[in-house]
Every structure is written in structure tokens, then in C-alpha cells.
């Protein structure tokens, strides 16, 4: 008869065996495949171990971290590793092995060794980096030129992520009013599906590489970040091979993920990515404005210089003109003086010549006269011979007339003699002396005969001639009118 045990008896027996064999806690290595934090503060885990092929699970166990322990272990792990205690990571846990008749086998987590997780992660990372380096692709995305103005942006993010909203808001409300063109290519950004989802998103962007300027890979911020999916060869490789620069903002504080490492530019948060893009655009605009200002001020300086040069030239020109005018004036004066001199000389010369001509003319005239006088003399001689005959005749006529005149003159003289005798007799009778004897007087003033009182002046001396003498008298009164 086979011994029969009740289930509780069996479970109780297992519990005893386990308890006696695992009297002290043991350190166990496992990967967290599931983690649930209950509202009461207890943490329930599923631990697994994968085979060499990584996709076959070879062991699995449940584990519990009671709230009291979890409150201490969680911050300890997260501050040391810089990552959350989450699924997908390998952990080294100190556990006590427990068996409960009702709930079965489970591990009660007492402690955790974060350095193991760090080491495991570091090892995995190193391995991925080595592969990328060996492939010669690790810096390929960094070698791409980031456009001066990344205005057309392809975004890989979870549509519901707070980080995506932050990013979009930051871009849309930029204070400079820049315009951006964004297109979301949704992807799962954590957990096991992240790898394929992110690679798919990149593949969807790829046909539009000519349109977009840049790819932005962002994930919600805060401390709920699990980086492990970004420490992934496949994602990293796709980023390195992508023809557009990839900017990451996958929100973590400490170490860079492999995705960050191979991205063109790594930024901490989605907000930081937006700021980076905005700063770049602003820098472009500032540079452009500066160059414009610089150019304008250079041109203004240049124009000022040209103006000054022009003024200088104008001054120079007017000075030259002045000088030239002065010179010409002087020259003109000199010319005019010389001209005068020449005229004077010419005049003198001409005078001299005229003198000579006159002299010559005089000589000619003299000669002419001489010649003609000789001719005249000759003519006169001829006349002297011819004339006397006719003159004789005329002389006789003249003698006749003279005789006749003498005769007439004597006759006339006798006649006149007789008349004069008669007049003499008459004159004796009218002699003034005879008139004065008769009682008349002659009055003169200033040697003139006084015939009328109108010509006399008071006090004037009058001379009155009488038959036997003269009286001088002074005028006392003049009485015009008949006496």
C-alpha cells in the first residue's frame, strides 16, 4: 500500500527540506522579466534565465521584495546604476528560498548588488561598441553635416509620451517665431518591442530623406527611464547607417546609451533637443543679421570715404582751375605786353618807313616841280619873245585913257574949288563963337555935351562955356520937365 500524503503534508515536507537546505540566504543571478509594484508597497518579480541563444528561457522563479526592504533597495539600486529597477535587466539578488504550502516556491529578496547589473550592462555595451567599431560604422552619423537650419524634422517617439508633447510645444512656441515642419513616426520606445519598432520607424523615414533635414529620437522624461533597449546593436547600427543626422533626447541623467553614442548629437531630454534646434536656427539668424549689418556699415563707411575722396578731388580740381586761370592770366598779360611792344616796334618801323617814303616823295615832288618849273621857264621864255608886241599896242591905249582922265580931273577940281569958297563964307556965319556972342552957352559934363537932364546926377560938376570963358558949377537939384 503506497503511502498517501495530503497536498498540505507534501508541501509541508518540501518546505521543510528546502528550509533545512537553504538555512541562509544565497546570491542568485537572474534577469527580471516582469516587475509589479503593488499599491501596498510590495514588489513582485518574475526572474528568468535565458539560454545561450537568448530567446529560450531555461529557468524561471517568482520573487518578492517586501515593502520595507523595497523602500531601501530601490533607491540604492537606481542611484548606483543610474537606471530603474525594471524588466529586461540582469540582477544579482540575495534571496532566501521559501516555499509556502499555498503559494509554492518563491524567493524573498533581501538585498541587491547593483555593481553586477552595472558590470553586465557595461559588458553588453562594450560588446556592442566593439562590433560597431569593427564594422567601421560607429562615427558615420556624426560625420553627416547638420543643416544650418533644421526646419523639417522627422520625429521618432511614442505619440502619447510627455516628452513628445514637451518637444512639440517648445518648437511651436519658440519666442523667435520660427516655422518648423514636423512629422511623427510613432514607435514603441521601451521594452522588448522597442528595437523592432524603432528600426521600422527609421525605415519609414528613409524614403523621405531628401525632404527632412534631421531625425529626432525622443522619449518621455523623468526618472522612469529604461535605457536598456537603447543599448541595442540593431538600433545603433541603423542610426549609424541613416543618411540624415539623428538627434537623441531619450531622457536619462548618467551614462549615454549606445544610441546616444552613435547619434549625431546626444541631448539629455526632448526639451533639450528642441532648444538645440532653436539655438541653431537663432544662431543662423544672428549670423545672417550680423553679416548684413557688417556689410551695410562697411558700405556706409565706403560711401563716406568715396564722398570724402570726391570732395578732396573737387577741392583739388578747383585749386587747379584757379592756378591754371592765374597762369593763363599771367600769360595773357605777358602776351599783351609783348604784343604792345611789337605793335610799338612795328609802328616805329612803319613810321620810319613812312618817313623814308615821305622823304622820297618830297624828293620826287621836288624833282617833279623842278622839271615842271624848267618847263614853265622855258614856256615863259617863249612867251617873253611873243608877248611884247601885243603889250605895246595896249600901252598906247592906256596912255590915251590916262590923258583923258587927267583932263577930266582938272575940270572937276576947279568946280570943287568954287564950291568950297562958297561954303567958307557960309561957315563963318554959323561959327559957335558968333553964337556964344549972341548969349548962348555950351554945358558939358565928363567931357560930353549936355543935351538932356536925364543923364545928370546930383552933386556932379558941370562945365559951362561962355563967349569969354568957362564956369564950373555943381548940380544942386535936377528938375525934369519943360521949364
Amino acid at each position, binding site marked *: 500500500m503506497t503511502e498517501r500524503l495530503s497536498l498540505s503534508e507534501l508541501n509541508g515536507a518540501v518546505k521543510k527540506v528546502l528550509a533545512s537546505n537553504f538555512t541562509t540566504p544565497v546570491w542568485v543571478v537572474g534577469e527580471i522579466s516582469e516587475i509589479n509594484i503593488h499599491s501596498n508597497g510590495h514588489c513582485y518579480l518574475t526572474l528568468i534565465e535565458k539560454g545561450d541563444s537568448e530567446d529560450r528561457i531555461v529557468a524561471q522563479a517568482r520573487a518578492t521584495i517586501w515593502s520595507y526592504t523595497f523602500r531601501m533597495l530601490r533607491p540604492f539600486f537606481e542611484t548606483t546604476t543610474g537606471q530603474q529597477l525594471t524588466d529586461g535587466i540582469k540582477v544579482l539578488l540575495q534571496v532566501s528560498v521559501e516555499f509556502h504550502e499555498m503559494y509554492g516556491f518563491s524567493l524573498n529578496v533581501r538585498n541587491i548588488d547593483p555593481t553586477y547589473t552595472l558590470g553586465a550592462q557595461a559588458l553588453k555595451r562594450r560588446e556592442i561598441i566593439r562590433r560597431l567599431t569593427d564594422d567601421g560604422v560607429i562615427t558615420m552619423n556624426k560625420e553627416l553635416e547638420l543643416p*544650418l537650419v533644421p526646419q523639417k524634422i522627422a520625429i521618432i517617439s511614442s505619440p502619447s509620451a510627455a516628452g513628445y508633447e514637451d518637444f512639440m510645444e517648445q518648437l511651436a512656441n519658440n519666442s523667435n517665431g*520660427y516655422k518648423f515642419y514636423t512629422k511623427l513616426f510613432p514607435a514603441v520606445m521601451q521594452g522588448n518591442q522597442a528595437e523592432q519598432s524603432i528600426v521600422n520607424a527609421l525605415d519609414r523615414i528613409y524614403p*523621405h530623406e531628401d525632404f527632412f533635414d534631421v531625425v529626432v529620437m525622443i522619449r518621455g522624461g523623468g526618472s522612469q527611464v529604461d535605457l536598456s533597449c537603447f543599448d541595442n546593436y540593431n538600433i545603433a547600427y541603423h542610426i549609424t547607417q541613416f543618411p540624415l543626422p539623428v538627434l537623441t533626447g531619450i531622457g536619462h541623467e548618467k551614462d549615454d546609451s549606445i544610441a546616444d553614442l552613435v547619434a549625431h548629437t546626444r541631448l539629455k531630454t526632448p526639451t533639450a533637443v528642441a532648444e538645440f534646434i532653436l539655438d541653431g536656427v537663432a544662431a543662423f*539668424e544672428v549670423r*545672417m543679421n550680423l553679416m548684413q549689418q557688417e*556689410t551695410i556699415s562697411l558700405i556706409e563707411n*565706403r*560711401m563716406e570715404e*568715396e564722398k570724402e575722396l570726391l570732395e578732396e578731388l573737387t577741392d583739388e580740381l578747383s585749386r587747379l582751375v584757379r592756378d591754371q586761370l592765374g597762369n593763363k592770366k599771367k600769360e595773357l598779360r605777358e602776351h599783351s605786353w609783348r604784343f604792345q611792344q611789337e605793335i610799338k616796334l612795328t609802328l616805329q618801323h612803319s613810321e620810319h618807313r613812312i618817313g623814308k617814303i615821305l622823304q622820297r616823295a618830297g624828293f620826287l615832288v621836288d624833282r617833279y616841280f623842278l622839271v615842271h618849273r624848267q618847263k614853265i621857264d622855258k614856256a615863259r621864255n617863249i612867251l617873253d619873245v611873243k608877248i611884247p608886241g601885243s603889250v605895246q599896242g595896249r600901252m598906247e591905249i592906256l596912255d590915251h585913257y590916262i590923258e583923258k582922265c587927267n583932263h577930266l580931273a582938272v575940270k572937276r577940281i576947279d568946280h570943287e574949288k568954287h564950291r568950297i569958297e562958297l561954303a567958307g563964307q557960309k561957315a563963318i556965319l554959323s561959327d559957335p563963337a558968333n553964337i556964344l556972342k549972341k548969349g548962348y552957352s555950351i554945358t558939358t559934363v565928363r567931357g560930353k555935351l549936355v543935351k538932356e537932364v536925364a543923364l545928370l546926377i546930383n552933386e556932379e560938376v558941370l562945365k559951362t562955356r561962355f563967349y569969354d570963358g568957362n564956369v564950373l558949377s555943381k548940380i544942386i537939384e535936377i528938375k525934369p520937365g519943360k521949364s
Partner: protein
Amino acid sequence: MTIKKGLSYKEAISEIEGILQQIENDEPDVDQLSEKVKRLSVLVTWCREKLHQTEEEIEKILKDIEKS
């Protein structure tokens, strides 16, 4: 003076830079200066508009991408 289709910001800024350099080196004579200033102004205006204003053409392409 026109902006060729598909001019990039990079090309625009290097042209602006080129103008600045020419002027720094006193290359253009006074008559050419005004041409340079005009060109500069056209480029800067083009950049500013592109930076701040929505281009319907780009919006349309974006919509087409969303459909695909």
C-alpha cells in the same frame, strides 16, 4: 535678381558671406555696391521669410507623407 528654386540656407549664407568678403576686400566699385546691397537684401529677406513663414508647398509634401 531672383532666388533660384531650391536654394538652401547654406548657399544663401555663403553668398551673403561672399558679398561681405568682397566688400571687406574693397572689390566692387561704387557702382557695383548698390547691386551687392540689393542682392544682400534679397537673400536676407528670402531667409527671413523662409524662417518665419509657412510654405504651402512644404505643408503639402508633409501631408502627402502622412498619407503614405
